[in-house]
């Protein structure tokens, strides 16, 4: 869901850049130097994981995992995703340069919202409840991202409105897959390393 350069109007680009900057600035501020290796290594792990392609009918989807990123990193998701998107744009020609701000906001903001909405849910005592909250986080972040991508397009031109609607429909299966995958990942992490899901809360205090 990387928008390329040239598709969006100037006001949308500018808004994205400003919001992106704010998010990254807050993220950097919340992350002190001692957490750098942690965020960096996790960011690398997400980079690798987001290349996993899952078959879906005749085609395949690659995971975005922004729900899980949000849950794991909180505000630090902004700088982490900026780095990932920059690397993709610059070395793989994926996405664009001036749209980086919009792309970062479209992917990181839903992750952040999921972090605030679901982090208590995934820490509940019942594994089933946690899985459901994980699924909500995974699917919800994709839903939000899709809406924001469609919104960025629709705001950039009337002609995109139909396409924006199509985008929404086309991503329903992706939401299902992401929901499932995120729920499973949350279940595993809860069991194997429960400290993990509290990390971001520590930063809040710090």
């Amino acid at each position, binding site marked *: 869901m990387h928008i390329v350069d040239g598709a969006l109007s100037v006001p949308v680009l500018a808004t994205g850049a400003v919001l992106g900057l704010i998010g990254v600035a807050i993220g950097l501020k919340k992350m002190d130097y001692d957490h750098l290796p942690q965020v960096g290594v996790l960011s690398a792990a997400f980079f690798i994981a987001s290349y996993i392609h899952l078959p879906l009918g005749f085609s395949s989807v690659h995971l975005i995992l922004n729900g899980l990123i949000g849950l794991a990193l909180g505000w630090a998701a902004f700088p982490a995703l900026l780095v990932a998107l920059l690397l993709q744009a610059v070395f793989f020609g994926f996405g664009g340069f001036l749209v980086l701000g919009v792309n970062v906001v479209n992917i990181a903001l839903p992750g952040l919202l999921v972090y605030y909405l679901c982090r208590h849910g995934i820490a509940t005592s019942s594994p089933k409840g946690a899985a459901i909250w994980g699924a909500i986080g995974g699917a919800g972040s994709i839903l939000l991202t899709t809406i924001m991508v469609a919104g960025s397009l629709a705001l950039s031109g009337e002609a995109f409105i139909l396409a924006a609607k199509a985008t929404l429909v086309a991503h329903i299966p992706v939401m299902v897959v992401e929901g499932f995958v995120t729920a499973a990942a949350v*279940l*595993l992490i809860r*069991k*194997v*390393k429960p400290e993990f899901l509290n990390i971001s809360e520590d930063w809040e205090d710090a």
Partner: protein
Amino acid sequence: MTVLIETRGLSYRYPRRGEVLNEIDFKLEAGDRVALTGSNGAGKTTLLHLLVGLKKAKAGEIHAFGAQRREEKEFVEVRARAGFLFQDPDDQLFCPTVLEDVAFGPLNLGKARDEAMQLAHQALVSVGLEGFEERVTHQLSGGEKRMVTLASVLAMEPEVLLLDEPSNALDTKARWRLINILQELPQAMIIISHDDDFLDHLANRWVRLEDAKLFEDRRMIVPELRAVTV
């Protein structure tokens, strides 16, 4: 004798690395327990990976279970029938609990959930890990991890076992238990190990990788550090 796996002229090279395997001819027959030795980096792991199609050979043929295997799709069946134990248990354990991990293989083979759980349970019993079902894989000791991975391979009821340094990271007691378990198993095996004593208890045939070639003999490094070919 039934030939289970056979290679002809198998070669492999890594980019920016010399030849790792050079025209390897090898046969694994029913009842064989082959010790595969060679120094670090000799290409032992690579050879096993080629046999089950995890890496693609640069030249040569692989025949397994009665058919030539070339493509990914053909190797899927090979992997279902040849159980592969990896060098590092941490790479192999990715489910949260022991039971789920052991049941992963049978589920991949299309077994129903109940049956898979049943098989997993049996496999755990057979390696002496009854009662470990709900334990968290990541928190097991090295020896326990190794046994769980063995169980997860056995749960697939393979016809051949490919064991990559199975006695690594085991203390003396666990090592003996492993020897006993492996001795009782009827399958043909290829066992990679640097532990000659371990191999002495298990192997009935020795092969050795050196300079990218495979030799059908046994070279033993005796304590005085002289190399003798037996």
